[in-house]
């Protein structure tokens, strides 16, 4: 059962080959036996998911209509609010914070009968590229347990990779879905900015954040987008356009279509990564597409631009964690200032503090023009450059990351860690839909990946190209060997 994609599980449930309870308990069992090693989950909703599954079985038996996600277990990154459950954001600050409401994405999943199975680990407040910055546990890469799964949505990536859940939700502010997808051999999609409501997603960089799905097939991603990519009046930045039939757009040849490659920007790619990337481009050629060179030279400024804007927004978004209304309050604090200082000192980890400081600095009077305002201008230019680039091609292809997964503890220098986001942040800065696809594994058995980016609002096109790529590549049974086994029942 664990080898099935989400769509296959849903089909099996509809056809009566598997009950929702069988599916839910099967995955709960895998989590119980295997998550010890992966440490993807912060919280497993065993009772909740079984109760929901039994209800679904009842609904099916009674012949009632069933939702698009009926029978599919879905894991949720622990920075997305699920009403009545704890939302930690992998921070000590929120260790006892119970969500008072459902995120829109969660509401939509439940309306379509999805089975919310638990909450997954992340870098604290989604700040990091390795999930090592969780205050609770270090998540392992299922392909090699001494390697990091990437981040910040490392738990969501790892659980789908190890088949502890067929689908998970992540959030992507600068690559937090795509980079861990690349590291764990899963498909990870960051939709157009505003496509999925951010209501209920704990904000990091509000103008960059997007919720998106992880899965083991593009079709499953398309299914999730049909469910979650809907207008929401609780998010003012949400796209007020009705959901697209993404699944219907997957088929159709890409013969003669143009795949743009910013060769200039990719100059720094290592020899090994370049050859992997070129092989992936061959797959497109095989599918009948042409490869064209496009100029995206401004992307070399995307890392500093991103770290200025995201930390500026984060410094204010995280100001609400003050020890007054909810979450951590230092027991040592005696005065108001001490409540602020000590609660934040004790509640936040080092990476979060560093980013709050950086963000506060770039917004400070006297420095705002040199940093924040300049970064805003560069962001506008990057958006322009992408617009021009898309006049020449249908889709842009790039590697997802500069390297495959690294060892846990292998990157100590924060600046080196920030470079993990080199190829992913521009999609967030420009608000573009972007997907990371597994393309095979290297000699060390670590997955490698390809990233595809489309014009704003063209989520369907990105999924179409991704699906055609997947179909042409025919990467089958791409399961980490350690987890490619049944668990005792």
């Amino acid at each position, binding site marked *: 059962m664990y080898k099935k994609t989400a769509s296959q599980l849903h089909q099996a449930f509809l056809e009566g080959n598997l009950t929702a309870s069988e599916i839910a308990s099967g995955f709960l069992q895998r989590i119980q036996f295997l998550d010890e090693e992966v440490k993807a989950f912060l919280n497993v909703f065993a009772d909740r998911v079984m109760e929901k599954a039994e209800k679904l079985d009842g609904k099916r038996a009674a012949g009632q209509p069933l939702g698009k996600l009926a029978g599919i277990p879905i894991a949720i990154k622990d920075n*997305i*609010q699920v009403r009545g459950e704890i*939302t930690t*954001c992998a921070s000590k600050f*929120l260790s006892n*914070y119970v*969500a*008072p*409401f459902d*995120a829109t994405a969660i509401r939509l999943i439940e309306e379509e009968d999805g089975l919310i199975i638990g909450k997954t680990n992340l870098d604290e407040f989604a700040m990091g590229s390795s999930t090592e910055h969780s205050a609770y546990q270090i998540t392992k890469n299922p392909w090699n347990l001494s390697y990091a799964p990437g981040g910040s949505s490392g738990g969501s990536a790892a659980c789908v990779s190890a088949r502890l859940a067929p689908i998970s939700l992540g959030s992507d502010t600068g690559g937090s879905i795509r980079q861990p997808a690349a590291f764990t051999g899963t498909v990870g999609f960051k939709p157009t900015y505003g496509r999925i409501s*951010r*209501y*209920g*997603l*704990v*904000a990091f*960089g*509000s*103008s960059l954040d997007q919720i998106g799905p992880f899965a083991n097939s593009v079709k499953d991603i398309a299914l999730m987008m049909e469910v979650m990519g809907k207008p929401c*009046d*609780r*998010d*003012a*930045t949400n796209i007020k356009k009705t959901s697209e039939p993404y699944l219907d757009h997957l088929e159709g040849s890409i013969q003669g279509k143009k795949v743009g490659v910013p060769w200039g920007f990719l100059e720094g790619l290592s020899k090994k990564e370049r050859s992997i990337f070129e092989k992936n481009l061959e797959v497109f050629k095989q599918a009948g597409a042409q490869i064209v060179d496009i100029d995206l030279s401004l992307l070399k400024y995307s890392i500093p631009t991103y770290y200025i804007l995201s930390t*500026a*927004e984060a*410094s*204010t978004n995280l*100001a*609400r*964690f*003050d020890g*007054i*209304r*909810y979450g951590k309050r230092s027991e040592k604090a005696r005065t*108001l200032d001490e409540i*602020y200082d000590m609660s934040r000192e004790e509640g936040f980890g080092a990476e979060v503090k560093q980013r709050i400081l950086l963000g*506060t600095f770039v*917004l*400070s*009077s006297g420095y*705002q023009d040199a940093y*924040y305002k300049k970064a805003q201008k560069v962001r506008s230019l990057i958006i322009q450059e992408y617009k021009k680039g898309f006049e020449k091609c249908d889709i842009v292809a790039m590697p997802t990351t500069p390297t495959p997964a690294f060892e846990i503890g292998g990157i100590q220098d924060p600046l080196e860690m920030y470079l993990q986001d080199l190829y992913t942040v521009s999609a967030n800065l420009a608000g573009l839909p972007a997907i990371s696809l597994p393309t095979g594994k290297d000699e060390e058995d670590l997955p490698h990946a390809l990233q595809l980016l489309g014009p704003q609002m063209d989520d369907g096109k990105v999924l179409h190209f991704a699906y055609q790529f997947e179909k042409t590549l025919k990467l089958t049974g791409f399961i980490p060997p350690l987890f490619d086994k049944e668990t005792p029942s």
Partner: protein
Amino acid sequence: MTVSYEEWEPVIGLEVHAQLKTRSKIFASSPNRFGDEPNTNIEINDTGQPGALPVLNKEAVDLAIRFGCGVHAKVATFSKFDRKSYFYPDSPRNFQITQFDMPIIIGGEIVADVEGKTKTFPLHHAHLEDDAGMLKHFSDFAGVDYNRAGVPLLEIVSEPCMFSPKDAVAYATTLRAILEYLGVSDCNMEEGSMRIDTNVSVRPKGDKTLRNKVEIKNLNSFAHMEMGIEAEIRRQIQAYSKRPHEDPRLVVPSATVRLDIDKKETILMRSKEEAKDYRYFPEPDLPPIILTTDYIEKIRKDLPELPHERFKRYTEKLKLSAYNASILVNDKSLSDYFEEALKFSSHAGALCNWITVEFVGRFKDSEIDLTTSGILPEHIAKLVTFIDNKKITGRIGKEVADVMVQKPGKDPEIIIKENPNFQAVHDTSAIEPFVDEVLSAHPQSVEDFRNGKDKAFNFLVGQVMKLSQGKASPDVVKELLIKKMLPGK
């Protein structure tokens, strides 16, 4: 030391915070209502829950536009929100959402009557923002009530265009009237729905440059505002006079003060040198407000009669004195009361007198006022009509008014019917002796009347009325006089 106050010119500018009369809050669905149990009118935005997102209330925008149209300002077709960062427990996100550099309303003017002179006070701008909660101090702890958090505010900023405390009071009085007439705010200073920060500086008469300004915080009545401004002007002039040769910037540094009502002095709260860096930057959760001119014009067409228009109508059409007209116009509820009474009587002058002098006077030392007393405007109109028709005399009218105040809602017609002393005497036999007495006492007037002098007739009527202590029916008196003086007719 002698200080010559005449050599100095005060310069005053006002920042008025008006709470907008919307049903719900500016960025949340919770009700905008004063006086409820603490923390009952709140939803996730009002306590800054993680994952909550602000959504702009269209009603607040419409009211801001209404104000802009009402003061002949430019309504910006593009304006935006910004985050203003500071930590305080009443601020649920520790940043306020305000409009920093692109406000919705630009310019405009307030035309006010200052001691009989019409003056025009230019506005700088008005912007939308959210109100904070309220701190409540108990014996050994403090609590926060977030009911007020997120209440929409319009901050109306004048130019430094007032040159005396009287100017400032006239400006504020007129501004309040405009806000009330437009239905933008109920401007209740006691409940804090209108709050005034006053900026005061002084300069030697003839100087064109402005000196350092001092802000007087939280003046919660016009009387206090006048007192505060007077005190602050005095303080600054004394300071400059004491240290005439020093750099004025050092003599009166920019600062915030508060008024000590008992001492009638302003007291330093903090110097502006300690000014905070609010790190303003554009609010990423809210798209800009983009308005079409059609939309603005539609609201403009819908404006009600404004105070200066009503003033004009009162003085020109109803022939009220400027003094009486402004008493009514500056008090919207009284003026509306007068308008209601006008529907039942066309004698505007008499109505105005009875309302503003007789009835308002009777509530002078009372907790309640006329408009909320339960006395119907229709009844005052009826009383005026009775007097006008000579059904009762003016003197009896005053007594009837006393009863109306004692028994609010009681029809004067019934009051008169129930009390024989209030009824005009129609009985010929009771009036005849007075007529005979007057005729024999004034033979010359009888002669004049017979020679066609109307004046003489009115005199004789008056004399009879006097003898009857105002109770005789004027019609009966007239009839008897004619019968006796011109027997054949």
